């Protein structure tokens, strides 16, 4: 029988409140969506037991991890988790292999349907094992973090934008592999991403967070229908936060309503929940837009680089 994850409670910070009443069947992997600041990362931190001020109950299957007044009933290290943080968080001063050894030595269980070697090969890490983590690129660091999380042989995988620093081809390949490994090992996955194609491939349920509350929950197909066609989903964007002096710093997920490759114009639409962000963008602003999902359908003239283009707001 698939474990259920029940979370009821609240985390209050000076300018943010996460208010949760969740009951998720983890027989199917879960995608978490929401605008920046909606609480996606905080939700994963709450599940991992990294938010000591969360007041409420967390139940995973038969295990009560947290309840009112006892936030660390089961502390983080005993929850049997595999966590990939957005910023990778490799153990500094060590090699890639030493990071793996740290996880393997403390693995939640020994048996696994997926061999460690196949994970290393599948993530193209075999040539990096002796490298110190400080010398790795952002994409390599993320792939090491994904492998390390899998090596803990977790009973629950939590991943927060785990592939965002890899290029599109690598992401597509990693997503496929990850999908195979998770299915083979039968490990429930909670996956945070702005990239709908990753969510569509890896998860079968979706949670939508907005301002610290769950505003939607259901099958991933329902999400596809609700948001629009598959083409619109794959043309969903994040504004880059890699700003330079000449570029605006905004992060968002506008939907591409129309595109004109010949004139190099795209019409973007922001969701209601992101209207405040839209107000900060003025006509004529130079914006850097980075595609986090498959942007191949946008047309070549809009893409000076495979997943990024730059232009002026009209």
């Amino acid at each position, binding site marked *: 029988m698939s474990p259920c994850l029940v979370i009821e409670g609240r985390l209050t910070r000076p300018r943010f409140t996460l208010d949760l009443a969740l009951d998720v069947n983890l027989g199917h992997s879960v995608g978490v969506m929401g605008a920046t600041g909606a609480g996606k990362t905080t939700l994963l931190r709450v599940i*991992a*037991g*990294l938010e000591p001020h969360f007041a409420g109950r967390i139940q995973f299957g038969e295990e009560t991890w947290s309840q009112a007044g006892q936030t660390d009933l089961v*502390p*983080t*290290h*005993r929850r049997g*988790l*595999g*966590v990939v*943080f957005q*910023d990778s*968080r*490799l*153990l*500094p*001063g060590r090699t890639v292999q030493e990071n793996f050894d*740290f*996880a393997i030595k*403390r*693995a*939640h269980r020994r048996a696994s349907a997926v061999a460690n070697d196949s994970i290393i090969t599948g993530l193209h890490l075999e040539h990096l094992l002796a490298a110190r983590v*400080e010398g790795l690129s952002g994409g390599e660091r993320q792939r090491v973090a994904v492998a*390390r*999380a899998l090596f*803990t042989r977790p009973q629950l995988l939590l991943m927060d934008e785990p592939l965002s620093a890899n290029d599109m081809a690598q992401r597509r390949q990693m997503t496929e592999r990850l999908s195979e490994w998770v299915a083979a090992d039968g490990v429930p996955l909670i996956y945070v991403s702005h990239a709908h194609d990753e969510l569509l491939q890896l998860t079968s349920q979706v949670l939508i967070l907005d301002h610290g509350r769950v505003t939607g929950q259901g099958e991933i197909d329902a999400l596809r229908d609700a948001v629009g066609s598959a083409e619109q989903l794959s043309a969903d964007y994040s504004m880059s936060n890699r700003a330079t002096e000449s570029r605006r710093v905004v992060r968002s997920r506008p939907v591409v309503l129309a595109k004109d490759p010949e004139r190099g114009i795209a019409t973007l639409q922001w969701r209601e929940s992101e209207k405040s962000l839209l107000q900060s963008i003025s006509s004529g602003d130079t914006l850097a837009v980075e595609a986090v999902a498959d942007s191949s359908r946008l047309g070549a003239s809009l893409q000076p680089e495979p997943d990024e283009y730059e232009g002026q707001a009209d």
Partner: protein
Amino acid sequence: MADMQAVWLTGLLAGMTTLLLAPLATPLAWWLARSPSSLRPIIEAVVALPLVLPPTVLGFYLLVLLNPGSPMGAFWVSITGASLTFSFSGLVFASLVYSLPFMVQPLHTAFRAVPAATLEAAATLGASSRDQLLNVALPLSRRGFLTGAILTFAHTVGEFGVVLMMGGNIPGETRVLSIAIYEHVETLNYDAAHVLALGLLCFSFISLWVVYGVAGQRVEVLRG
């Protein structure tokens, strides 16, 4: 010959103090670096007291606390058959108290420099709090240990007031270098005092030189 005995005794006292303080100060420094407890500032103040208290005050209270007529002193006599006051064991005990901040503070600083994000990652990989200390924080705090060990050793070598109050001047038992210099000056034997004082001056300078060298490297590592 008597001076060589004082050099040996000083080295032995400083070495034992350093070796004993390292394992005692490590959990204390870890707790001070990570605990959200409201008691933390009080404990920090108590640990730092030897930095500001006149050594004679500390020596006086240790004498009151550890003399054979006191409960603690009597307990020590009952298990070892010897007194803590005016003995080498008493000097070691006093040095542990007197040099505590010199070991705790570099470790505290080193532990605070270990990113909380790294410890969180270790926890998600299955490391308990103790495991995080031993296998994540300690390897990242090697330079803090080196700094603490050098400062503790050097500070113990330079002890005078506490040693005089607790140990007096018993050759081969409590007569350490600083006491020997004092005695040479009292007996107007300035040549012998010069030799020992110059030796201590050079030792202290080299110790601090090494510490600042270590600290400099550490900053570079953090920047890297």
